[in-house]
């Protein structure tokens, strides 16, 4: 089973379809956007477009410029250069800048920023300034139902749990029907168990509301699990953007590869029909994409723990030794130092226990083509 088919299933598993008329319409467009603070460049020539109803996640290490990008879309920061458009209207470029209140962009803050002096209902009604009173009440009830908090209408934010506060923040920002909803590290303030639950919940609410959303996170698991597309950011630019499985499977750069999952690199010499590695020789076909141009050269092949399997053996047959064991509950990840000098990781069922120093033979068990990079 390849991962490509697995993603198709992810969206099939969603019990709701995005409620949008034309899923191919571009709602948000960033064109060559940059932001610098004096000498320091936070975002550099970033271009991006997001379709109606799509959920895109900006994923990257801290300081990569993802939050700055989000704040520029919201109008909380002014781009130094480039152009941002929402629904075909330019909202920021070299000469013009629309204030946050004139953009129709909603934002869910990392710490929710609920108004502590207002009730849940008043918080949600806050952005509905142009509606009649009855219509406001109706919209508030509708949203409370959407986020499943109808019973908490009159509570103060301080009386709610973290997950509930987050849902109120979500309802509040959805109330004025924003063109784009921004989520800034939406799950970072929740404990681990709740985080997983809320991911599903939030995705469901966003899809049901049919809103175009951009979320920002440094948590790869979160990004891969909730997004329609993921943009990996590094040093103020997008390193790679695409379907989560596509990006995980075929990282275009070493940075992306090492940021997603536990990546090891296997150095290999390319010949006309095989590649020679510390684990033995493999058919060139097992590599992803054409490698002819590298015939005779060295490349680094990306292997993740689940691509490899270690088997205890005697000294003479061994590829290397087990040097470390990481226990993850259901599984072990063994670090193996190969005779060739490479260090790789192999994932095993929790009952397969090897001791440090154990000589092992490592097999490639991947059922997909392997990504590779020219050796630097």
């Amino acid at each position, binding site marked *: 089973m390849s991962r490509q088919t697995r993603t198709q299933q992810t969206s099939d598993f969603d019990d709701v379809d995005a409620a949008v008329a034309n899923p191919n319409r571009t709602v948000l467009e960033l064109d060559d956007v940059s932001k610098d603070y004096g000498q320091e460049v936070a975002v550099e020539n970033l271009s991006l477009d997001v379709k109606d109803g799509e959920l895109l996640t900006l994923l990257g290490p801290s300081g990569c410029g993802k939050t700055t990008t989000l704040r520029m879309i919201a109008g909380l920061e002014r781009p130094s250069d480039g152009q941002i458009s929402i629904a075909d209207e330019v909202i920021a470029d070299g000469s013009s800048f629309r204030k946050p209140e004139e953009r129709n962009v909603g934002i869910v803050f990392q*710490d929710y920023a609920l108004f502590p002096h207002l009730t849940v209902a008043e918080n949600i009604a806050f952005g509905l300034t142009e509606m009649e009173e009855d219509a406001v009440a109706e919209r508030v009830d509708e949203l409370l139902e959407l986020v499943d908090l109808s019973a908490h209408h009159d509570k103060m934010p301080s009386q709610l749990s973290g997950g509930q506060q987050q849902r109120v923040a979500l309802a509040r920002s959805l109330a004025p029907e924003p063109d784009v909803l921004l989520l800034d590290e939406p799950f970072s303030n929740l404990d681990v168990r709740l985080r997983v639950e809320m991911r599903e919940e939030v995705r469901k609410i966003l899809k049901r509301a049919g809103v175009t959303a951009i979320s920002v996170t440094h948590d790869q698991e979160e990004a891969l699990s909730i997004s329609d597309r993921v943009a990996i950011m590094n040093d103020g630019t997008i390193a790679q953007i695409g379907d989560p499985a596509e990006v995980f499977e075929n990282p275009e750069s070493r940075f992306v590869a090492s940021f997603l999952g536990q990546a090891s690199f296997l150095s290999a010499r390319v010949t006309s029909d095989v590649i020679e590695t510390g684990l033995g020789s493999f058919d060139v076909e097992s590599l992803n994409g054409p490698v002819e141009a590298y015939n005779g050269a060295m490349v680094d092949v990306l292997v993740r723990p689940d691509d490899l399997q270690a088997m205890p053996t005697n000294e003479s047959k061994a590829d290397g030794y087990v040097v470390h064991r990481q226990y993850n509950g259901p599984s072990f990840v063994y670090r193996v130092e190969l005779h060739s000098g490479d260090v790789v990781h192999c994932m095993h069922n929790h009952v397969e226990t090897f001791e440090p120093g154990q000589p092992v033979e490592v097999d490639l068990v991947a059922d997909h083509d392997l990504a590779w990079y020219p050796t630097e």
Partner: protein
Amino acid sequence: MGTKDRYERLREQATTSERDSSPHTLLAVVSLAISLLLLAPLVWVFLRAGEIEFARAVELLTSDTTVSVTLNTLALVTGVTFASILIGVPLAILTAQTDLPFKRFWTITSALPLVVPSYIGAFAFVSAFGPRGVLADLLSPLGIEQIPTIYGLHGAILVLTLFTYPYVFLTTRASLLSFDGTVVEAARTLNHTRWEAFRRVTLPQIAPGIAAGALLVALYALSDFGTPAIMQYDVFTRMIYNEFGARRLDYASVLSMLLLVMALGILAVESRLSAGRDGAYVSSGSRRPGLIRLGYWKGPALLFCGAIASLCLVLPIGILLQWLLRSGTGYSGGGFAFEASYAWNSVGLAAAAAAICVVAALPIAYLAARGSSGVSSLPERATYVGYAVPGVVLGLALVYLGLRYVPFLYQSVILLVFAYVIRFLPQAVGTTESSILQVDPQYIEAARSLGYHPLSAFRRVVLPLVAPGIAAGAALVFLTTMKELPATLMLRPTGFETFVTYIWLVQGAGYYGQAAVPALVLVGLSGLSMLVILRREDTS
């Protein structure tokens, strides 16, 4: 959930963690005894008023004088409070949330008027704007003979406002700074302009801060003696002092009781307000809200800050320096030479008050910070009453209590120091308690797990950590004692002079020049107490 601040967590731990009850019982008894001793004189005010025959009491209460003094007092308190809000809140917003140039400088000049004791400010204003004052001197060559009088309600409001508005400024600024800027951003992304966001989000959240400052101002205006006395405006404090001088005890005690009730009323509102503020903020984001660009308003804003600073700082200090430099009749002489012993008297009294306050504050503060039940904060709250007691009321109570029950103490400095302790103990309790709260109770648990007895754990771990807080409390008490006026005037032994009584004496006699040096020294000392407060705010 990460939404509680450290202080709250510590308080929680402090109240939930298990501990031995026996040392706490002892602490409670000691603390309770101290607070009862301190409250006793106030009870006297009520007892003394109760001795008056009912018909006579009604007559006194409903007399024209009482009614007019009450109205005068209310007018003064209301006027000062509102004027302080009008000055303090804009200054706080300008310095905390706009792109005003030289913000740090204006922050300091806006807080600094607090260091000028209001009676010295009042002298300066009378000297500047009074008859034969600096302004009159400047204007008379121009043919202007009559200038509006500085005396009366407006003069008292002006002076008290200028030297107490910093309470509103500081509390408002603190709530603006502690308040989470992301909620303003949230409001803006929900289609609110900057002004609408300020009105609907910022203002409701800083309102308790503004109110807290305003109540402090009201309490100060209500109990201040020096300013209305100098401005010749009849309010409770001035009337009580005059009745005391004329030995009309009945009326003085009735007025004292009324004044005390009003002060306690303000204190009660204040403490409810600050209790309600605890944990009111859910979101703990620390992002500062973006600065408001003043644009065209930059000029008027600078002018406003400059005008306030000139009136509050440049003018009084300028006048004091002028007194110092200018000599001639009316400025010096008159047989009121300043003696070094006056300074030593001031220092000695202040040191004694500070030492006693620190010792008395420790058990009370420790109990309030670490005690588990509501009862344990009772002694602390009782001492806060001393905060609200106007100096004249306390002076009156102690004079007559002394005469009746402890005549050997009457006219002794012991009674005077006792008065200072009642008035200023809350400052020592406050700083000590907050520094105890900052010490994680687990330190004690850790020390005990390493084999220390609770008491030696306290001595080895807690005491060194809270020592700076205790020292700050001592410094505050020392400095505020130095400038206390009414109780000192009423309780000092005959012939015993201090900085303050000397200033009062020469001012009363019109020899302003003689007051310049001691007044400048007092302003300098108050400046030091400001420094202590600011440094503590920086570290906590």
